[in-house]
Structure formats: structure tokens, C-alpha cells
């Protein structure tokens, strides 16, 4: 069997008396799309924070491509090829959309500060190459008219798309996307689904938090359902949708 892209075992975290994540374990297969769903407050974003060590877990371990992430700094985890986006779009204010996307290329850059300061040809060429790639990705998500606009001036949905392509610039091995479709209309959501399938098809593993059920059902290879910090169901979309506990968690126990 191949090494799982992500292996989560016994992860736990509490905020005061609230058990945000309690003993969560599951694995994510390489080059697949895993959807993480669950009602508000189920601990989905906290799980992302624990995976990327933005919050430190009280117990448990995360392995990325077989390598334990315990104690690593968020930027070191990103350097391994595990890149995340945020629930509230976090484009960089004070920078244009293109500069935002280019900032994602930090890990992929070969030339360092010294070469850039000495105006070396290699650094200039790389800069031009990256700018072309950034423009190309911005075009791909239909935002070409916004390239030079301050990123914070973009509508929320567009900011989330900028965040996704910014993450792509880092040439990740796996993406953790926190509600990328929030703020998009139906047509844009369908385009996003196509984009994410394309990303998976070039071999990048995806784990996505999403509330839009039709997106989840059409996109995910595997669905993990979180409720009150615990995994209550997981499996292919069809199976999970029929699960009684999932329906209870979403609609209420009386239904």
C-alpha cells in the first residue's frame, strides 16, 4: 500500500472546557479529494489549525507523506508542500492581486535576496517567469481584469479564489482549503469544482472544508463528517449521505 498523504491519529484539542477536537483519526489517500464537513463549531477549522501547527495539539500526531509534523513551525510545514487557505479570505492588504499571487511563489523561488539586490540576470528571468505564471493562474480563475487591483478591493468570492491560486504558486503536494466556495455564486462554484478536479488530476492531494453539499457530493472521493469534535462518519459521498448519524447531526436528533 502506498503511503497516505496525510495520517491523523488521536488528535485532540480543548479551549477551556470546550473540546474542540477530540480523538480524531483518519487518513487521506494521495491524489484524492477529501471533503471535511460538519455543522458549525464541529471543529473543522481547528483541525486544520492543528494539522498546520497554528494551534498546538494536546494529544495525537499528524504525519504528512509519512513524516511526523509534531513540533514543526507552520512555515516549515508549508515548506514540506502542505499549504492551507483560510476561512476568512486572507489576501494581503496593501498588495495588488498579482503581488498576492506572486507572494505564494516564495517557496518555489530559487533566487535569494542577494541575487535580487544585485540585479542578477537569473533573478530577473525568474521574476518574469513567475509573473507570467501568476497572470496565467489569475486568468484561469477568470480574474484577469483584477490583476493590478488592490487585493482587498476584490469581492469576497474573488479573494478566496486569489487565495487558492496563491497557494498553487507554492507548488504544493497537498492543499488544505477552508471553505473556498463561500461567497461564490452557482456558476462560479461549478468553475471552482472543475478547477479543484484539475488540481487533483495533476497529482495534488486536496482536503477541503465545505458547506455546499452539491459541491461536496460532486467533487469528493471521500467525505469525513465531524460533529462536536469527533468523526461521526466517513466514506464515499453516497454512503455518508445516507448515514443516519450524519442526518441527525445536520437536521437534529428529532428528525
Amino acid at each position: 500500500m502506498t503511503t497516505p498523504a496525510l495520517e491523523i491519529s488521536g488528535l485532540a484539542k480543548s479551549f477551556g472546557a470546550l473540546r474542540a477536537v477530540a480523538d480524531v483519526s483518519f487518513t487521506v489517500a494521495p491524489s484524492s479529494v477529501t471533503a471535511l464537513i460538519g455543522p458549525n463549531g464541529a471543529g473543522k477549522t481547528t483541525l486544520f489549525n492543528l494539522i498546520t501547527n497554528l494551534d498546538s495539539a494536546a494529544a495525537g500526531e499528524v504525519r504528512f507523506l509519512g513524516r511526523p509534523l509534531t513540533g514543526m513551525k507552520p512555515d516549515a510545514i508549508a515548506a514540506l508542500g502542505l499549504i492551507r487557505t483560510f476561512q476568512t479570505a486572507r489576501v494581503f492588504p496593501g498588495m495588488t492581486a498579482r503581488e498576492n499571487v506572486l507572494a505564494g511563489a516564495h517557496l518555489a523561488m530559487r533566487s535569494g535576496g542577494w541575487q535580487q539586490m544585485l540585479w542578477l540576470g537569473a533573478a530577473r528571468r525568474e521574476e518574469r517567469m513567475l509573473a507570467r505564471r501568476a497572470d496565467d493562474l489569475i486568468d484561469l480563475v477568470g480574474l484577469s481584469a483584477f490583476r493590478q487591483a488592490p487585493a482587498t478591493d476584490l469581492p469576497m468570492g474573488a479573494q478566496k479564489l486569489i487565495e487558492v491560486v496563491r497557494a498553487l504558486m507554492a507548488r504544493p503536494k497537498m492543499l488544505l482549503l477552508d471553505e473556498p466556495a463561500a461567497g461564490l455564486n452557482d456558476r462560479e462554484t461549478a468553475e471552482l469544482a472543475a478547477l479543484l478536479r484539475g488540481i487533483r488530476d495533476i497529482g495534488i492531494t486536496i482536503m477541503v472544508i465545505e458547506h455546499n453539499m452539491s459541491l461536496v457530493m460532486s467533487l469528493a472521493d471521500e467525505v469525513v463528517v465531524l460533529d462536536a469534535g469527533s468523526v461521526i462518519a466517513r466514506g464515499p459521498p453516497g454512503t455518508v449521505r445516507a448515514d443516519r448519524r450524519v442526518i441527525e447531526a445536520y437536521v437534529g436528533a428529532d428528525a
Partner: protein
Amino acid sequence: MLNAVQIIIGGLLQGSAFAIVALGFSLVFRVTGVVNLSQGAFCILGAMAMYFLQVDFGLPLIVAAAGSAVIGLAFGFVCGAAIFVPALSRLPMSAMLMVTAGLLTFMEGLILVIWGNQSYALPPFSREAPVLIGALRVPSQGFWIAGISAAIVLGLWWLIYRTGFGVALRACAQNPLAARLMGIDLNRITLVSFALAAAIAAIGGVAIAPLTTLQFDSGRFLTVYGFIAATIGGLGGMAGSITGGLALGVAEQVAAGYLSSLFANALALLILLAMLLWRPRGLFASRREARADVPTQRRVQRAVVRIEGGGAWGFIVALVILLAALPFLVPTGLMASLTIAMILYIAVLGLDVLMGYAGQISLGQAGFMAIGGYAAAILATSYGWPPLAGVLAGMALSLIAALILALVTMSLRGDYLALATLAFGLLIDSLTVGLVDITGGPSGLVGIPAFSIGPWAFATPRSMYYLALTLAAILAAALYGGMRSGFGRALQAIRADPTAAAALGINVSRLKVAAFAIAAMLASLAGSLYAFNFHFLSPDMVDTPHSFETVAMLVLGGEGTLVGGLFGTFLLTLLPTVFQPFALYKTMVEGGLLIAIFMYLPEGMLGRIAVLLSPRHARREVGSHDDARA
């Protein structure tokens, strides 16, 4: 033994003074989350007002003291209503810190204009002779200070815990949004707290003035010591402020008694650094945990100003030609000032990388200028090193100092970093004055040779100007290369959102250190050139007010533009020369400018011009695109 007790009593006395300043800090911090650097200046204002009312005007002690408190309160109200409250509603926290730094400078300048730069000493409140308890001698003023501190604490406690205003104040401190929803006028509470803190500081100044001599610029020491005391106690608490103040006072007196007063200064600043590292929330605060992906700071929109294309290159070429021709265009009387401005621009250029791109405030640029200046000067005069070697040695020394400081402060939030650099700058100040054998003390070092490289000597202001211009042009070109590429983008990303930057693999602390090191080395270079230019170096040429000045020059010109600082530097250097009779007002005007720029011209002169010149408004593009999609 007796001696030790005596020292500790002295420490407690001094500590009460620190505690009073710390109380004012805590009050403002509790309501607004802002570290108000102007706190110490209100102490001096109170003491000077006391001198005026009691000594010049002959009013009785109690009346004069009450009058001073009222003056402090009134001035606090004016500053609060005109500056602090309006600024708070529109500026990010880091800018608030600079606004209060501007207020500190402005008040120092105002006191300088009114009372001059001589030292003042007030008579003690009661009989001159110290009170004898057994074999211990306690200055009578000590009892007054202790009593006044206790009265302030009781009064504050009553106000905060027993009045309706106190309830509102605590509500604002706990949850400003909820307080506003409940109909509490947040601005009013902020204003009253600010004015009250000013009055407390003024009373504190009145109480401690008889024990020491005070000058227009003594306020910044009280600010720093008060802040250290408040930090030890955990900013925001009353008990903590008092314990912190007393502990700091005792530690300082013990260090002064058994080692030297020079070491006492250093110790206080080391205590601060240790506290910031070990327990940034203070000795008494508890740890609170919150979700880490939710930003705690309010997001502030910044204008995106980009000058690009042929126009930008034309501008740069024209600027370089103008700068090269400038010595032939201005009267010879201005040549020396031009040289100074060009040298200072090198330091401002470094600060721009740190502040304008990485978003970190440094209030210690002058400290690195001092390291560079003294290293080069001492190596050239006492050891006969060639100037260039001295300059490089100074830069290496600054780099080491910057790395050590960065190592200590890297984990700190923005405000604390700025204050740590301020503490560093003051530490260097006290060393340049105190290490008389090495630096020549207050009278400075003389006989520094002209700068030279091999056979070429730069002995005239004009040749120094061209040297500085060449260096500045090379450095600016290099930094521009870095700032428009990945390095600059990463720094800007860190400034905008460190968490999101780290999620993209950007090593936040390493890049911050890099920016800090660049700023330190360029300041050091400027300091060395300074020494070679004047053939003389004294502590007041590179002391902490110059740190504030470089910040003012940068923000006036325009942060994050590299070129902008040039305008600010030339303006603030040449104006006082042109208006020589008004030199007395320089400090006050600089402080006022710092406040005004942060409040009304956050993008600086160059940024403003660029916005006016560029017809391409990004906002309109966004709008039209939305229309197209609809």
C-alpha cells in the same frame, strides 16, 4: 546591613515614582490597548508647572500642586480630544504608538520653548532634613511620595470599582463592542482615561521633582521606566503596576549602590528585555488561549501606490541629476546641511526596509548610528585604522548587536518590539555618555580624520556629499532590486498578515531579522560617515531623539517607497537651517509633524504625489468589472 536597608528604602522611594507613571500607563492601556509613550512628558509638564506656580509665582505648596494637577488634566484633555481619540478610531495600533511618540516629542519641544533647556530642581515639600528612624535616614520627600502614591491608588480604586464611570471603564476594557452596544460612549471613556492618566503623571512629576533634577527631555526616561514597571506587573493592572514600580526601583538602587549608576540603567533595560521574553503578559497575568487563525488586530486598509513604467524611470533619472547638480544650485551656507541630509538618508533608507516593507517599527536607529560612529571614530583616532576599515568594523558590530537584539525580541508583538528597540537606543545613549574612557563622555571625541579611501580624501562637505550620494544611489538601487522581487513581497506579506505569510512557507522571523539587520547596518554606515564628516562625535549627535527624527523623516516622505525618505530627510534637515532663528521650535515642530502625518498623510509626501499623478484608479477597474459580469 544598614547600608543595604538604606539602599532598599531609596529604591522603594524611587520605585513609587515609577509606580505612579506605571499607573497612568495601565489606565490608558486597559481602556485602549495603546502604550502611551507621552506619559513621561506629562510628569515633566507637571513638575515644570509646579516650579512656575510655586517658585516663580510664590503660591503656597498645596495650591501650586493642585494647580499643576489641573494643568496636567487640562492639557491631557486637549491632547486627548484633539489627537488621541480621533487617531484611535482610524489608525492601526503600530501607528498609535508613533502618534504617542510624536506627542512625547511635541511636548518635549513645547517645554523646551517655554522653560528652556536648563535643569530644574524643586524645593522639598517640607523641612529639608531627612527623617531619622533609628540610624536610618529617609528623605522627608519620601513620605510625601509614598503618601501621594497611596492617595492616587485609593482614588483610582474608588473610581474604577465604586463609580458608574468605573463600571463603564471596565466594560470598555473587557469588550469595547459590547460596551458600545450597551450605549457607553467609548470615546468619552477613552478621553477621560487619557486626561486622568495625564493628571496622575503630572502629580507624579510634582512629587518626584524635589528628589532629582528635571529637564525638558527627562520625560522619556520616566516613560521608559514607567513602561518597564507596568510590564513587570502585566500591563493593565493596578497592583501589578505598583509592585512592578517598587521592584524596579529597588533593583535599580541596588545595582547603583553596589555596582555603578551606569549599570543601573543597563539593568533596568535588561529587566525589560527579560520580562518581554519570559513573561510578556507580566508576572501576574494568566495565559489565555484563543483560536490562532482568527486575527486579533483590526485590519486596516492601506492604499496601494505603485509607480511603474517609463514615468518612474524618468522621475528617477531626473532626481539623480538634480541631486548631483544641487551643490552648485544652493548657497554655500547650505552645503553642510545638504551633506548631513544625504548621510541621514542612508539611515532612513535602511529604516524604510524595516518599517515600510516589513512593517516593524524601530525606535533605536540612532543607537546603531552611535555604534557605527563611535566604532569608526575610535578605531581611526586611537588605533590608526583606515576609515574604510573602521566603517566596515562598525557595520559588523552593528550587525552583531542587531542579531542579538533581534534574537531577544523576535517573538514579540509589534508594539513590544518597538519598545525594546527604544530601550536598546537608550541603553546605547547611557553607554556613550557613561563610558568616558572609551567615548570621551558627554564632551565627545575630537580629532577624527576625514574619510579617505587610499589616496582619495573626502575633506570638504561637497566631496562628502558626493560620496554619500554615490553610496545612497548604489544602496537604493540594490534595495529596489530586492524590494520589487520575492524578498520585498515576502516582507510586505509579513507586514500585512504574518500568519497567512507563514502558511505560504515564509519564514517570518528570519526575514524580519534580515530587514532589521539591513536597517542596523545602514544606520551604522550613516553614523560612521557622520563622524568623519564632522571630525567630531558627541553623544547628543546620535542619541534617541534622532531615532524619532529618522522615523519622522521616513513617514513624512512616504514609507515603502525607498525614494520618499529622501524628501522627508531633506525637508527636516534643511528647514531648520533656512529658518535658523526658529531652531528652538525644531523639536516641537517635529513632534507635531509626526502626529499630523500619521493622522492626515499616512502615505507620505511621495505617496500623495503618486496617487495624484496616477489616473489609473484600481477601484474604478473593480467597479467596471462587476458591471461587466452582472
